[in-house]
């Protein structure tokens, strides 16, 4: 059974069609890259997977481990192992990164029918993850994304992924705005996360990240549809030739 199975997904916003029939199957252990021109619907697809309100699924379905999640609330999807790293993470001053992460970890523990971790265990775990991403521990005390640089926000998304250990991580342009060193750090984080039991969907504009996190499949989204799929060589070809040749 596929970890993720998306069938015939049609999505509208305010009555305007944005996704026009997406089919995608992702198996455990795989990395899929989704590429495509600006405005082609990549973030919409990612947001719909995560259950963002305001995006109407007018046709089709999304399944995680065989369970239809199309109608589930965002928190329910998260508890079933879906994770979205936002293209534009939200700033929430006043709520510390630490209490945010703890609330998320507690919710996941309760969702599994377990007791939440002790504060000490949690802090240790969070610090370890932060240091793996070369983030200063003070970072955990600051407001969620509050005043973070673009690169820090992206690393903070990966930090959350490492702590929540989802089944399926959808990373929406997590590589955009990263300097070369930060890209390496984030790629190491993703590679450390990868395993036989989970899968990653990388939305990206650049081949660069794919040098570090090697995808099993590459898809091109255009006008709300997957118009082409291939292996990693497709990303190289896109870098050279652009999207025009696909008729996208």
């Amino acid at each position, binding site marked *: 059974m596929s970890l993720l199975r998306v069938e015939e997904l049609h999505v509208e916003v305010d009555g305007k069609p944005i996704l026009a029939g997406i089919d995608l199957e992702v198996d455990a252990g795989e990395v899929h890259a989704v590429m495509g021109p600006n405005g082609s619907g990549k973030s919409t697809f990612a947001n719909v997977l995560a259950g*963002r309100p305001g995006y109407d699924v007018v046709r089709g379905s999304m399944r995680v481990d065989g369970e239809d999640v199309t109608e589930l609330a965002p*928190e329910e999807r*998260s*508890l079933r192992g879906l994770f979205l790293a*936002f293209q534009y993470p*939200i700033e*929430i001053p*006043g*709520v510390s990164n630490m209490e945010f992460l703890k609330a*998320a970890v507690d919710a996941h523990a309760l969702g599994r029918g377990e007791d939440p971790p002790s504060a000490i265990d949690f802090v240790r775990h969070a610090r370890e993850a932060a240091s793996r991403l070369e983030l200063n521990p003070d970072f955990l005390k600051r407001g969620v994304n509050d005043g973070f640089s673009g690169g820090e926000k992206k690393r903070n998304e990966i930090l959350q992924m490492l702590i929540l250990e989802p089944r399926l991580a959808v990373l929406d342009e997590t590589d955009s705005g990263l300097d070369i060193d930060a890209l390496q750090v984030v790629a190491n984080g993703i590679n450390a996360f990868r395993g036989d039991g989970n899968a990653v969907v990388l939305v990206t504009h650049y081949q660069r990240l794919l040098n570090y996190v090697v995808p099993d499949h590459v898809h091109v989204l255009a006008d709300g549809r997957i118009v082409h799929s291939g292996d990693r060589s497709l990303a190289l070809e896109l870098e050279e030739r652009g999207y025009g040749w696909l008729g996208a």
Partner: protein
Amino acid sequence: MAGLALNGASLAEKLLARGPTSYAPWLDRRPHLDLIEQRALPELRAEAWRHTNIARWYETVLAGTERATRSRRVEFPGEVEVVDFADPRAAELLVLRGEEIFRLDAQPIAALNGMLLGSGVAIRVPAGTVPSPVRIVDLPAAYQRILVIVEPDARVELIEEPSSYTHRLVEAVVQPGGRLLHRRLQAASPDRECSLVAVRVQANAHYELSQLSLGGDLRRNDIVATLAGNAANVTLRGAWRLVESQHLDNQVAVHHDAPGGTSRQTFRGVADGRSRAVLNGRIEIAPGAQQSDATLNTKNLLASDTAEVYAKPELEIYANDVKCSHGATIGAIDEDAVHYFRTRGIDAPTARSLFVRGFLREAIDDVETARRLGVIQ
């Protein structure tokens, strides 16, 4: 109460017929009675009472109900002098306080406190001492007065625990180099309550207010802080969370009367249900109060479509070499933030309360107390 709304003049007439209370007979009630006789109690449409229907409070004043089973409960350490306001020693302390801390004609309902006073304490913190906190747990009457003198270079924390009253007057003078941290805890209340906090801050002294409020049937807080000496410092923080049809009206005025003073005002409030929250913040910088530095910042969250929030900063500046800034915002809960939390597995109600807590936090210095009171969850 049905029928005609009670106005200031008719309340005055009825109260004068009954006469003043006999508590603390040494207290000169003439100025209070004069003011009431002169029909100076606010009328129903008075500007300062735009958002609070004073007639409803007047009804409570007229009804004059007292709870029977109350006693004076004030906790204080040995170094601090605390006397009942009825004690003649309180009269001496009132003299020691020095000049008037506020103008009665500018706070006319305080005249009712003078006329109807039923309990109070006078507190003196001796020069140079740093005692443990003084805690006002409860006072046994509807009209209450608390006088605080913080002598030079003394430091103290005064805590007003939640308790009910019809009118409470808190007067404080912080003498040169002294520090007063004033915590006010206001629990949800079915009553109609007004209070006045009036503080005079002398040279190099510091007054810090930390007020946490839930709403009342009618709750009104007037706060007047005067920076009277050079380089005085005033920090005011207020956080509130209102639900259902609760009401909270904060009227705050900071007067810079001397040069080199610094004042910081930070208010954060959340109004849910059909509640109404008001914050009027006024900064007045007198001629000669050069190098004053004053800020006022208030942010409000409307957590429902039916709640009402009024937030108005007012500035009056008569000196030219000053720094002054103010900002007031009213907004809704950021649903993008709530969604962000939810995508991490946090359910919607928890996400909203996390957001609200974060929003209020800037005006809260003691998270544990705020949680116990229920301002945050």
